């Protein structure tokens, strides 16, 4: 283990000789802090909140070890507390253990083996507890997302359905075939919107719950697939779709996450074009360099207002009513990049266009 990774432990004792003996015995195995009194010990704890195990002598002139542990328990709940004591104090130790102030006690004089086993056990307990705290935090986040999710499902799934329902009702009383056709076109858009929302939910769950399947990525093939998907859209909307790939090295990544990223960035680039622009383009550039893939998706579309740039990666955020969107796409992109340890940057000018730059390390 490197110096930074050694477990931090604190030893509190009023006898200087004990402190030095302790430090001499364990300084190679642990990152040892020593304190001569409880005031000093509290200072050290405040400056090193990542101390994992505290040993404290029971009999000290200013206060007992049990009292000290009782005090620090609330402000410093994470470090595992161990009391060092002789047999005479056993009653108070039992009380302290039962009150939950102390994880374990070690009788004096201690042996090196006692301390090592105590640090091992304490560290396991510390890790299990921190893991629990992390899991709790994740759970809290999942609940918050679930709330948002339930809310949006009523809007994003019910919305298009109710639109179609309303349209069917109106169409019952229309005889003009031209008008009916117009409505069918709008209904089609509603169905597509619903379908893309469901696909996005599918992506969302794959990203959240799915494992990464790391394989060699052939960018030429990946880009080819994207050209197949967007070629028709490009032609129909008169958008020049330029792609450029330079891959000189092996790149390993999860293909599914890769696709989510490319798909969403490209579909946005194609979607948010300026209707009257004569020279619409979407550009996709990929190059690999020193174990990194750099992906650039560039368009000269409507752009994103600077007030909204900070929010575009939030779930269900939409910066425009121009086109049909679920507010899910870029959130999924960010999520996928988080899993791949990638980064994304965006530059945008309103009515000038948007450029997304993505960097992903090879696995």
């Amino acid at each position, binding site marked *: 283990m490197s110096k930074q990774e050694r477990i931090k432990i604190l030893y509190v004792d009023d006898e200087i000789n004990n402190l030095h003996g302790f430090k001499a015995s364990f300084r190679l195995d642990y990152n040892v802090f020593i304190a001569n009194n409880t005031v000093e010990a509290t200072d050290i704890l405040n400056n090193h909140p990542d101390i994992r195990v505290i040993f404290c002598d029971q009999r000290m002139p200013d206060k007992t070890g049990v009292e000290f542990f009782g005090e620090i328990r609330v402000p410093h709940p994470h470090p595992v507390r161990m009391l060092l004591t002789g047999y005479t104090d056993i009653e108070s130790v039992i009380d302290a253990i039962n009150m939950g102030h102390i994880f374990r006690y070690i009788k004096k004089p201690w042996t090196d083996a006692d301390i090592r086993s105590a640090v091992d056990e304490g560290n396991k307990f510390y890790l299990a507890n921190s893991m629990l705290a992390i899991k709790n935090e994740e759970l809290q986040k999942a609940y918050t997302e679930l709330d948002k999710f339930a809310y949006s499902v009523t809007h994003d799934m019910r919305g298009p359905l109710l639109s179609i329902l309303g349209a069917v009702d109106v169409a019952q009383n229309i005889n003009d075939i031209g008008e009916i056709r117009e409505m069918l076109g709008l209904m089609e858009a509603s169905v597509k919107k619903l379908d893309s929302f469901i696909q996005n939910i599918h992506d969302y769950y794959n990203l959240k719950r799915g494992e990464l399947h790391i394989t060699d990525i052939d960018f030429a093939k990946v880009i080819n697939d994207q050209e197949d998907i967007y070629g028709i859209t490009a032609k129909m909307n008169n958008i020049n779709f330029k792609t450029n790939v330079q891959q000189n090295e092996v790149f390993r990544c999860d293909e599914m996450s890769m696709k989510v990223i490319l798909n969403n960035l490209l579909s946005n680039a194609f979607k948010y074009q300026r209707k009257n622009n004569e020279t619409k383009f979407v550009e996709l550039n990929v190059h690999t360099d020193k174990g990194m893939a750099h992906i650039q998706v560039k368009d000269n579309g409507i752009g994103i207002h600077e007030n909204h740039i900070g929010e575009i990666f939030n779930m269900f955020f939409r910066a425009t009513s121009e086109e049909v969107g679920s*507010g899910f796409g870029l959130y999924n992109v960010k999520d996928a990049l988080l899993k791949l340890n990638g980064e994304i940057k965006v530059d945008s000018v309103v009515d000038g266009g948007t450029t997304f730059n993505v960097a992903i390390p090879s696995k």
Partner: protein
Amino acid sequence: MTQDKLNFIVIDDSKLDCFIAEKIIRNTGMSDDVKSFTDAREALAYIKNKPTGSANKTVLIVDIQMPVMNGFEFIEALEQLPQNVQNDYLVYVLSSSINENDLNRVRSYKSVKHFLNKPLNSNTLTALLLIV
């Protein structure tokens, strides 16, 4: 109904919903003036620039969940306009939302006359016009 014809403004980010609302309103024969906006900011700009004190009231039908400016923000902005401007409008909220918080929030606005469930249909609209 002996009253003068009403004007209508529909604000909804879904083009289909605007289309449906326009169609249903025109079919009632009670209005020839129906405008729709997919961006609430444009609707607000239109209202600000329109001369006040028109003989006919304008019914505003507003969706809640819209990008950029949502229905709540629109209503709050509308309530900031001078009273004589506000007097020209009757505000109705039309939404697919079944969320209690949304409904309570709609009820809290004094300018909102009623909450309507999507989809809008001719029966609802006729009933609404009778109350007007």
